[in-house]
């Protein structure tokens, strides 16, 4: 565990040393929100939730694409002798999870300031955000680890990850609709169970497959 946290710390230090990294994400969130606003003009509760997750998805894709691109290959070879692939994977996942949570909170703040708050059940929305970040960080880390081995890294990440995200996204949207009170559904536990079972599928599969995919 300590070794994993160590890797996360290295990761964060590399990222923070380059100042454009985090500020780039914030700017991405801001500019995409502005584009959405200049199209919509105003955001009712239902569209608020949809807009939120669309921006979130593309921001997370943008932020996660360079997961394995930050260090050169020699470094990975060196890591490979030091760490078990799962340790490396967990470190990357934890770092991405922090990034996604950062995006989630930033985006929430931006939309809160710009379009007002449409979330009635704060706890539910926060849980949804946590679950979404957890599931997506595992999924996106696995997909980027595949995509980095190909020639077109960035576009392939999007092409492979977007369709796979949809089962997660559908449940997330339903939970958001519940959190903002735009659905007559009064029992969100079904969706929550569904979401957590898909996420555990994703986690299980990615933990199983990553050591295999990474070995090259």
């Amino acid at each position, binding site marked *: 565990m300590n070794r994993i946290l160590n890797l996360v710390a290295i990761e964060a230090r590399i990222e923070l040393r380059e100042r454009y990294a985090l500020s780039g994400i914030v700017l991405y969130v801001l500019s995409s929100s502005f584009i959405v606003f200049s199209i919509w003009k105003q955001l009712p509760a239902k569209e608020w939730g949809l807009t939120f997750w669309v921006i979130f998805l593309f921001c997370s894709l943008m932020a996660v694409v360079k997961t394995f691109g930050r260090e050169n290959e020699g470094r990975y070879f060196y890591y490979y002798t030091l760490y078990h692939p799962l340790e490396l994977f967990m470190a990357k996942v934890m770092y991405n999870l922090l990034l996604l949570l950062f995006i989630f909170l930033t985006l929430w703040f931006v939309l809160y300031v710009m379009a007002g708050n449409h979330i009635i059940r704060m706890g539910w929305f926060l849980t949804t955000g946590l679950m979404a970040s957890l599931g997506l960080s595992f999924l996106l880390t*696995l997909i980027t680890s*595949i*995509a980095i*081995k*190909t*020639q*077109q890294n960035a576009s*392939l990440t999007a*092409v*492979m990850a*977007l*369709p*796979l995200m*949809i*089962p997660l996204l*559908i449940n997330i949207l339903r939970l958001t609709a519940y959190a903002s009170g735009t659905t007559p559904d009064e029992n969100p536990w*079904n969706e929550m169970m*569904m979401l957590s*079972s*898909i996420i555990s*599928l*994703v986690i299980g*599969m*990615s933990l199983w*497959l990553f050591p*295999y*995919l990474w*070995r*090259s």
Partner: protein
Amino acid sequence: MQEPTIHLSFRLAAWKWATMGILIAVFIAGWIVPLKSGIIKVTPDKAAAGEMLVVDVTGYNSSFLTDTSLLRAWLRLSGDTVIMATRIQVTGDRNLSARFYIPSVFPIRQEAYPLTLVLDHSQDGTSVLPNAIFITPALAQDTSELKLWFKDKIESVHEKAGIQYPFRNILAETIRNTYFHVPMWFAMIILFGVSAWYSLKYYQQGLIDFDRKSIAFIKVGLIFGLLGLVTGMLWAKYTWNAYWSWDVKQNMSAIALLIYAALMVMRSSVEDDMQKARLTAGYNMFAFVLLIPLLFIIPRMTDSLHPGNGGNPALGGEDLDNTMRMVFYPAVIGFIMLGLWMSQLVYRTDKLKGNQ
């Protein structure tokens, strides 16, 4: 040394002829067997209670002109609450006009009363059109007319003889698509499953042959999925009135195809063969596991127009009667066998190309 290739190609040939035989039978039976007779149109579709009503009925596959004396018609409110036609005038094999007296009072009280038209003919059998006519309540109500509703019963109805597919409202002739649209998806999911199985084999043993096999099954599975989507869209044009209505079932199956298309794109952008095979195996297993909630769980949780969702009947119940089963099951088996056979051929040609 043994010669396994001769044995194998003999098996493949036997497989091919069995598939061809089943599919030819399915195509002939699926296209040629006629539908039972039914009712397409009723005019007028609105009327007021307490008046004489003459409705013009347009039949389908019907032969009203033969044996006109045994032709009977009812308007049914519910169960045995029916009124019988007082006079039926046949104007052609497919056209007749029936005269009803709609009582001014109803046993139940509603804003409007949807009535079902039931037609019985000694040769065509029974035809039913639900919600054929909507009756608005009468201004002056005469309670003594209430007993008119219970005077007649629908009894001693006829069955049409011979082998026919059922006539379903709205579906009509497109019911034959059951034999082509549904088996495509069965075949696709089985091909993808076999492909994931070979990916697992590759994961365990690392033989490049397993990768060739798994990719051959994906290629053919994609074709079947695409055909399933196209046949579904054509069907949707006739029954839902649009090729694409953003129904959850349509979306999810399109996304499933996108996932596998992404896999093909990913493969084409990797140079090294072993690398390619490993990435394919990993992504393929990952995708297949996520395909299960995508295709089987999420559509069942959402409202959908598609049969099998949101209370719509599917393969069970009265939609698939025994005559249709006799064609449907061979169709499923035939198309799955066709898919497996095609994948074998694709695998073999890929292997020959790889050896050159």
